[in-house]
């Protein structure tokens, strides 16, 4: 198990600081984010959960500087990346600090071959040819897509495109990586592989990671802190176990707690659980077998 973020972030510098941020898209009648506050320490893996339309993607766009540089609208409050407001940096400066991966790989793939696609970012960072090739090789390996290197992007399946999109951002090694449902089209093995790579980059290279995900079980395992967004504001934050134990709030907002958490919540009258429920299979099986062993009927 990796070192948890609180110790790692002890330099005090925040990778991301979102201060009282409100945002309304041009032409929209209401704020998409209203008074959002959030912080991510350097080297931390923070998860954001929330129902459809709660502002998760908009928040990602704000943290990556896409808002206000590319997408415009009415903004109040500010976003600081590594201490500097995004509004006062150029797109070029931002692109060296932050990489973003969207749920739909189609929007970020535009080259003919997989190799060109993954090489594009490092080339634009001005790296030497052999460094670019090394980065391409590494990023393809990390995402289990080495065999796709020569393939044409338009012949890939949805899941393969998603791996290549992730590889193309990882090849740039941004200090901050934002992932907006990065594994929506991946199978369980592919999803696990992506999260393991993220964990390696975080613990070995100090990469800061922000993940928006529906798969809360995976987040429970990998994220150090979690924010829950609903209606454009943060409604819960803390360690994943604390946020995910608020089963009734999650369900009210249309979210899906881990199944073992739901089980223990539903069995409250029988189980007498503590303040936190189990989130993983090993936790739940230890807890339940201990409980059942103590019963005369078993």
């Amino acid at each position, binding site marked *: 198990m990796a070192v948890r973020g609180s110790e790692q972030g002890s330099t005090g510098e925040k990778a991301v600081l979102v201060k009282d941020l409100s945002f309304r898209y041009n032409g929209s009648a209401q704020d998409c984010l209203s008074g959002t506050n959030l912080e991510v320490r350097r080297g931390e893996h923070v998860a954001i959960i929330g129902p459809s339309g709660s502002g998760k993607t908009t928040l990602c766009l704000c943290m990556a500087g896409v808002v206000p540089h590319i997408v415009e609208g009415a903004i109040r409050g500010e976003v600081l990346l590594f201490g500097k407001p995004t509004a006062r940096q150029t797109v070029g400066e931002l692109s060296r600090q932050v990489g973003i991966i969207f749920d739909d790989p189609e929007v970020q793939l535009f080259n003919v071959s997989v190799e060109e696609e993954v090489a594009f970012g490092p080339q634009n960072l001005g790296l030497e040819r052999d460094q670019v090739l090394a980065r391409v090789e590494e990023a393809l390996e990390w995402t289990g897509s080495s065999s796709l290197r020569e393939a044409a992007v338009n*012949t890939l399946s949805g899941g393969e495109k998603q791996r290549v999109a992730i590889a193309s951002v990882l090849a740039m090694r941004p200090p901050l990586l934002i992932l907006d449902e990065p594994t*929506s089209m991946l199978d369980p093995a592919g999803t696990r592989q992506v999260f393991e790579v993220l964990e390696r980059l975080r613990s070995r290279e100090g990469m800061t990671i922000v993940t928006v995900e*529906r798969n809360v079980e995976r987040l429970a395992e990998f994220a150090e802190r979690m924010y829950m967004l609903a209606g454009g504001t943060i409604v819960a934050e803390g360690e994943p176990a604390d946020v995910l134990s608020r089963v009734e709030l999650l369900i009210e907002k*249309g979210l899906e707690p881990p*199944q*073992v958490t739901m*089980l223990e919540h539903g069995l409250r009258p*029988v189980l007498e659980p503590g303040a936190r429920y189990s989130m993983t299979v090993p936790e739940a099986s230890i807890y339940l077998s201990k409980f*059942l062993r103590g*019963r005369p009927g078993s």
Partner: protein
Amino acid sequence: MTFGKKLIETQALEHSYRLSARASTTAIKGINLEVLEGEFLSLIGQNGAGKTTLAKHFNGLLKPTFGKVYVDGADTSQMTVAQLSTSVGYVFQDPDRMIFLNTVEEELRFGPSNLGLGDDEVATRAEEVASHLDLREYYGLSPFLLGKSAKRRLAIASVLAMKPRMIVIDEPSVGQDRSQTDRLMSYLQRLNREEGIAITVITHDMRLVAEYTDRVLVLSAGELIFDGDARMLFKERSLLGRASLEPPQITRLSLALPDVFPEPALSVGEAARQIAKAAGTSPRS
């Protein structure tokens, strides 16, 4: 549930994609399969296993390289997608491929009116799917103004409004939160049970496989390696490993506690009843 006659049959189906003048790659091979009217299927397997390729043969979007596919007894190699569309509706992963009209309402009326139905019936069908998939509030809007999640539901609704005899949905839970996915799946279950519409979902969401579908097809490297129900599948550890599949969390818990669970549990409710029984207490609700 009563299953009707054979809706789809594949015989030694193989499909290869051409990569260049000389090279091609085989996506699926040796698929022998029968799907009956009124079945609720899931089609699962790793990325690149051939799920979408197989499903696209059900309505003629793809034609076999070798072997045969019959829909309602007719050989699809002799038929157009338009002819097959009244039998099998297909919802793509990417909704932008399916949306093209000015308003949500027009989009929902388009399919049924092309079937030659009367205006009243067209309106009723559009309203029915709109209310079940939470699209009523967007009726007058341009589909392109909708968020990802609503756009995806619109793509699904526009196919459901045609009430084909089978509906194929590629990844029903993509872009939907838990409650939206459950509303969609319950509606599909109702269409399946009450109107006998066969449903095929292509998915990585094993909770949907466990809770909603009656029959599971597992593809691995282009071959059909399992055809049976979910509970049977989740007992096949080596097969799950080979296809890189992971049962739902609640099923994994039940497999880790074999003393409590003689059979794998498929849902939280099932697991709760079993544990309450083991604890000698009657379950709540």
